[in-house]
C-alpha cells in the first residue's frame, strides 16, 4: 500500500507530507484502459476533444493494470467478466481507486437478471458511483472530481490503521 507501508505512523511529518502526496495523486491519476460496454464509449468521449479529461492529467490511459491508479468500470459486469475484473483490480498497485460508471456498474441498471452482477461493488470495492445510462461525459468528470475530494481527505496514518 504505497507510502503508508514505507512510512508507518510518523505524526507531524506525515501530515505535511500527505498534502503534497494527495495533491500529486489527484493531479496525476492515470486511469486504466478498461471499457466494458456502452459507458466505455462515453468514457472515450470524455477523453476526446470536446470534454478532454487530459486537463486533469488523465490522458495517460495505461493498458497495463500495474501502472494505473484508477479503474473506471464503464459498463455492465457479467458473471463471466467478474472474476477477470477482480484479478485486474488485484493486479493494480496501491493506492487504487474504483469508479463505478453508469447504472449497470453501480446497481445492475436495467438488467436485473441472471447474467449481470447487480453492481460492481459485489466484485471490487467502489469509491465513487456515477449515475446515468450512460452518464454524460460531464457526469463522469464530476465523478472524477468527487473522487479527488475524497483523495484529498485521505490521512496517511489513518488509512494504515483502518486497513489493519
Amino acid at each position, binding site marked *: 500500500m*504505497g507510502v503508508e507501508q514505507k512510512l508507518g505512523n510518523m505524526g507531524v511529518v506525515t501530515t505535511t507530507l500527505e498534502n503534497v502526496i494527495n*495533491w500529486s495523486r489527484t493531479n496525476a491519476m492515470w486511469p486504466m484502459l478498461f471499457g466494458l460496454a456502452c459507458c466505455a464509449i462515453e468514457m472515450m468521449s470524455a477523453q476526446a476533444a470536446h470534454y478532454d479529461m*487530459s486537463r486533469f492529467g488523465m490522458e495517460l490511459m495505461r493498458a497495463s493494470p500495474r501502472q494505473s491508479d484508477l479503474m473506471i468500470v464503464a459498463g455492465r459486469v457479467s458473471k463471466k467478466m467478474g472474476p477477470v475484473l477482480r484479478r485486474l483490480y488485484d493486479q493494480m498497485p496501491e493506492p487504487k481507486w474504483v469508479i463505478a460508471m453508469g447504472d449497470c456498474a453501480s446497481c445492475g441498471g436495467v438488467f436485473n437478471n441472471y447474467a449481470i452482477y447487480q453492481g460492481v461493488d459485489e466484485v471490487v470495492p467502489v469509491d465513487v458511483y456515477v449515475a446515468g445510462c450512460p452518464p454524460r461525459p460531464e457526469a463522469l468528470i464530476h465523478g472524477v472530481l468527487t473522487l479527488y475530494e475524497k483523495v484529498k481527505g485521505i490521512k496517511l496514518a489513518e488509512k494504515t490503521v483502518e486497513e489493519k
Partner: protein
Amino acid sequence: MTDWTIWVEWVVKGFILCMILLTGFAYLTLYERRALARIQVRVGPNRAGPQGLLQPIADAVKLIFKEELTPGKVYKVVFLLAPVLTVVPSLVLAAVIPLGDKFMLFGREITLYVADLNVGVLYLMSIASIAVYGIVLAGWSSNNKYAMLGGIRSSAQMISYELSLGLCFVIAIILGNSMNLNEIVDAQRDMWFAVIQPAGALVFMVVTLAEVNRAPFDMPEAEQELTAGYHAEYSGMKFALFFMAEYQKMIVICMIAATLFFGGYREFWFLKDTFFSVDSVWTIGSWQFKAWFLGPIYMLLKVIVLLFFMIWIRATWPRIRYDRLMAFGWKVLLPLCLVLAFITAVGILLFDLLGNPMLIWGVPVLSMLCILVVVAFIYRDLRRKSHGRV
C-alpha cells in the same frame, strides 16, 4: 601531477548535466502532452500549477509514493536491474556532447562537456546500444509473454537499425574529418552538414526514431498489440525509470542530431560573424565578454524543434508493422545509407582534389535525388500492391 580542481569541475559538470536531463525529461513529457493535445484539438494538462507546469512534479511524486509490485514468478535480480540498465546509458550518453563553447571562469578554462573524447562518435554508438539490454532483460525477466515479445522485438529492431545509424555517423565523420564531436561542431561553422547532406540528416532522424523506440517504430511497447510491451509488469518508480530512459534518450538523440548535422551549439550558419555568433564579443559599457552563453540557448532551440518533429510524427503516423520495419531497415535504409556515404565521400574527395567549391553542391543534389528515387520506388510498390487504389 593531478589538479584536484579538475575533479571538482567534472563532478559539478556531471551533476549539472544529470539535472538538465532529469528536468528535461520531466518537462518533455509535459511538452509532448501539450503538443499532442494541440494537434488533436484538445487542451492538455493545465490544472496542476499555472498552465499545468507542475504536472511533471505531480506525476513524479505520485509515482514515488506508489506501491511497487514485484510479481511472484519474475526473475528478481534481473527484474530489478533492468530499469537501471536502461536508464544509465541514456544519462551517460550525453557526456561527450558539447553544449556550448569554452569560456573562462575563476581564471580557468571551462568546457561545456563532461568528457572530450577523440572517438566521441564511437562512444555514442556503443553506449546507445547498451540500453537495449535493459529492455530485453526487462521483457525476459517479467515472466509475461507480452513483455517477452516486446523485448525480442526491441533487440531485433536495434540490430537492424544500428548499421544505418553507424553509416549516418560516418557521413558526419567524413564531412567533419574527425570523430571528435567538438571538431565536428567546429567544422560546421561555415555550413551545417544538414545543408550539405540533407538526405543524411533526414535518414538520421528516421533511424533515431527507431533507435529510441518512438512512433512509428515503437514496436517494443506497441500498446495496441502488446498492451504495454516490455514494461507491462513494472509499476511505480521502476516503470518511471523506463519512462525516464525513453524520454532522456529522445533528448540526447536530438542533441546528437543537432551536433552532427545542425551545427551543434553553433549559431545558424548565416549568422556567422554577426552579433549573434557564439564567437562574437559583446561590449556592454566598458565590459567586454565573449557570447559563449548563446551556445546552450541555440542548442536548446534546436533540440526543442527536433523534439517537436518527433512528437508531430507520433501524432500523425500509424505504426509500421514489425516485419516491414525490419525490411525497411535492411532493404531500404542500409543501401540508401551506403550510397549516401559514398556520395559524400566522393564529393569531398573531388572537392579536395579539384578545389572547386561548387563541386560540394553536387552532394546534396545527388543525395536528395537518391531519396526521391527511393520514395518513388516505395510508392510504385504500394500502388502495384494495392491494385491502383492508391
